[in-house]
C-alpha cells in the first residue's frame, strides 16, 4: 500500500499541468481557490489519479476535499 508521501508526490505530478504556472504547490494549496481548477479540471484530475492507482474515487468524498492534503488523506483511506 502506498504511503502518504508517495500519494502526495503522485498528486503533485498530476496536478502540475493543471495548476496556474506561478502558483507554488503545497499541501495546503486549495484546488479551486489557489490553483484555479474548475469543476471539469477537478474531474479530469480524479480520472488521472484513479488510473494511476487503479482505484475508483466515489464522488461522495468531493465535498470533503478542499486542499491537496485533504485529497491525499482521502486517497490514503481508499488505498489502505
Amino acid at each position, binding site marked *: 500500500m502506498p504511503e502518504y508521501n508517495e500519494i502526495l508526490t503522485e498528486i503533485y505530478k498530476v496536478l502540475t499541468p493543471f495548476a496556474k504556472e506561478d502558483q507554488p504547490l503545497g499541501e495546503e494549496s486549495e484546488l479551486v481557490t489557489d490553483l484555479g481548477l*474548475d*469543476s*471539469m479540471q477537478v*474531474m479530469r484530475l480524479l*480520472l488521472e489519479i484513479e488510473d494511476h492507482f*487503479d*482505484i*475508483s*474515487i*466515489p*464522488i*461522495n468524498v468531493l465535498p470533503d476535499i478542499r486542499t491537496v492534503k485533504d485529497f491525499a488523506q482521502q486517497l490514503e483511506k481508499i488505498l489502505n
Partner: protein
Amino acid sequence: MAIFEKFRGLEEVRAGLMKAGIDPFNITLEHIYSATEADIRGKRTILAGTNNYLGLTFDPECIEASCTAAQEQGTGTTGSRMANGTFAGHAALEKEFAAYYNRRGAIVFSTGYIANLAMLSTLAGPGDVILLDADSHASIYDGCRLGGAEVVRFRHNDPEDLEKRLRRLGDRASNTLIVVEGIYSMLGDIAPLADIAAIKKSYGAWLLVDEAHSLGILGDHGRGLAEEVGVEADVDFVVGTFSKSLGATGGYCVSDHPQLDAIRYAGRPYIFTASPSPSVIASTRKALEILQARPELRVQLWKNARSLYESLTDMGFTLGPQVSPVVAVRLEDKKQAFGAWMQLLEQGVYVNLVLPPAAPDGSALLRCSMSAAHTPEQIDRIVEAFSTLPNTAATSRTA
C-alpha cells in the same frame, strides 16, 4: 448579504450576457403558434431547441383530451397521491406504460427530474454503489446525492472503463446499479448499450436506462435504445419523461421487478410532490397512443434530423459524433457561442445556448433539437441562418 455571496460569480456572468439585452437562459415565448413557431422579442421565430421531438404539443387529439379532463376532473390534484389519492387517470396511464413496455409495473411521477430523483435516491442506499456515466443528466446526479449510496463515475460511453470499475468493486458489484442514458441530451450521442448490458450481466449488477431523449425515437415500437439494440430483458429499470416526445410534463419508470411498487412508499420525491394534473395525464395517455399508432412521426423526425445534421456538416461545422434528433454545433469559445446564438435569434431561429460545465469537454454548444413537425422550409431557414453566422463562428469549422 453573506448568504448571497456565493452568487457573485454567477451575477457577473449574467450581467455580461445582459449587456446584449437578452438572457439566453430565460427566454420568453410571447405567443406560441405551433410546435415549431413562436414569437420571441416580437419576432416570429422557428423553435429548434424545445425537445418537441414528435411535435405533439399541438396535436388536436391531445389538446381535446387535455381540455376534457380539465372540465371533468378539475385543473389539479392539489397534492400527493399518498395524501390525496390516486386519480383513475394516473392508474390507467401506469397500466398503459407497463403494457407498452411489456413490463410488470410502472410508476408515474410529476416530472422526469423527479422520476430520476425518486428512483436513484430510493433504489440505491447505504452500502450500495451507483456507477453512472460521467455525462449523465443533472437529475441523475441529484438523485444520487439525495440517496446514501456510494457514487462512482465511469468515462462517458466507455464500456471498458465501466468494466474496470466493476472489477475494482469485487463482491460489491452485485450491489451496484449502473446508470446510463439512451441518447445523451447535450451532444445527441447514443450509449453503447449492448456492450453495457453484457458487462452488467457478467458482473450480476443492475441496470437503469434513462430513455428521456430516446422514447418515441429509437426502436421499432419507439420504446427507446434498449429496444433498438435488443437488450430490453437486461435493463432492470427504464426511466423516461412526458416532456419530450409526449409533449407534456411528467416522468415514469417501468420495471419487471415487483419491488418497484416500494418506491411509492419509500421514495420521498414521489411521496412529497403533488401528482400530475388530470389534463397532463389525459394528453399524455393520448400521446402514448399516437406514438404507437403513428410510426411515420418517428420516420419524419429522423429524416429531419439527418437533413439538418448533413447540411451543417457540409458547411463545415463541428457537430456531435452521430446523427440524432439532438444536433449540437460545437464552438470553442463562450463569447463566440453567445454571439452566434444571438445572431441566429435575430434571424428568427431559436436554439439552445449551452455553456460549460453543462456542455461536455468544456466546449460551448449551439444545441438544436429537431421535431417531426419541422417542415422542409423551416429546416432550410435554420440552415440558412447558420450559413450567415459571422467569421467568428466560421473559425470553429473543421473545413
